[in-house]
């Protein structure tokens, strides 16, 4: 099982770099196209969450690991930002109309609903670790 290890700045450009690396690695490892696409989505959401809410400063970075095993994609994200569990933050309610639809929290919805499994922990050294497993139904 080949492992991708990557560190990107918590910026829009960093998210793009993470997506490019993931797409290349996961495709070469034989992941289904649908899972590659989901991996790119969650990578962007995690990186942007750290950028927008991590309070880790302008040099914030996100470390990633990715692997394909038995057709499933495993992703691990770590950052040095403030303690934040994206799996327990309240999700926005389903929109009843365009006028009522909130613009926030969509990234959390995507992370939680696109992942088959998700685990968060705050490490003793003060890092956030988010592990996601993506699998086709």
């Amino acid at each position: 099982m080949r492992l991708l290890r990557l560190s990107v700045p918590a910026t829009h450009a960093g998210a793009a770099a993470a997506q490019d690396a993931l797409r290349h690695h996961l495709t070469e490892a034989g992941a289904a196209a649908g899972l590659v696409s989901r991996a790119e989505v969650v990578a962007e959401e995690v990186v942007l969450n750290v950028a927008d809410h991590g309070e880790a400063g302008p040099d914030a970075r996100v470390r990633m690991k990715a692997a394909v095993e038995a057709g499933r994609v495993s992703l691990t994200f770590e950052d040095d930002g403030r303690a934040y569990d994206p799996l327990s933050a309240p999700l926005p309610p389903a929109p009843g109309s365009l006028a009522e639809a909130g613009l926030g929290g969509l990234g959390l919805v995507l992370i939680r609903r696109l992942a088959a499994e998700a685990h968060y922990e705050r490490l003793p050294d003060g890092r956030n670790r988010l592990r996601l497993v993506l699998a086709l139904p």
Partner: protein
Amino acid sequence: MRMDVREVSPDTNLVILDGRLDAVGTDAISLSFTAAVGAAGRHALVDLSRVTFVASLGIRLLLSTARVVERKGCRMVLFGVQPAVLEVFDTVALTTIIPVAADQAAARALLTA
């Protein structure tokens, strides 16, 4: 991400997006999309057949612009959505509040539905 805007009738614009609606792509067109669609005071048919990726920033742009269009008494309809993009739309229930059609003709029919 590239954007092209064409008038298809006096009250309707066709907006063609080409590329990825990721964070970088959304940044590239955000102002021009809002200006061309949100501020136009016309219906908008948004062709997504050449959009290969979307995430939350891109969805927020579509949502916020659709709201402005609606407040002006017009409609924004998306069409030609690729399967991977549609999966993301369905995950956030976007299709329940912004109409999505299979093609331009069906999208245009939804404007008067």
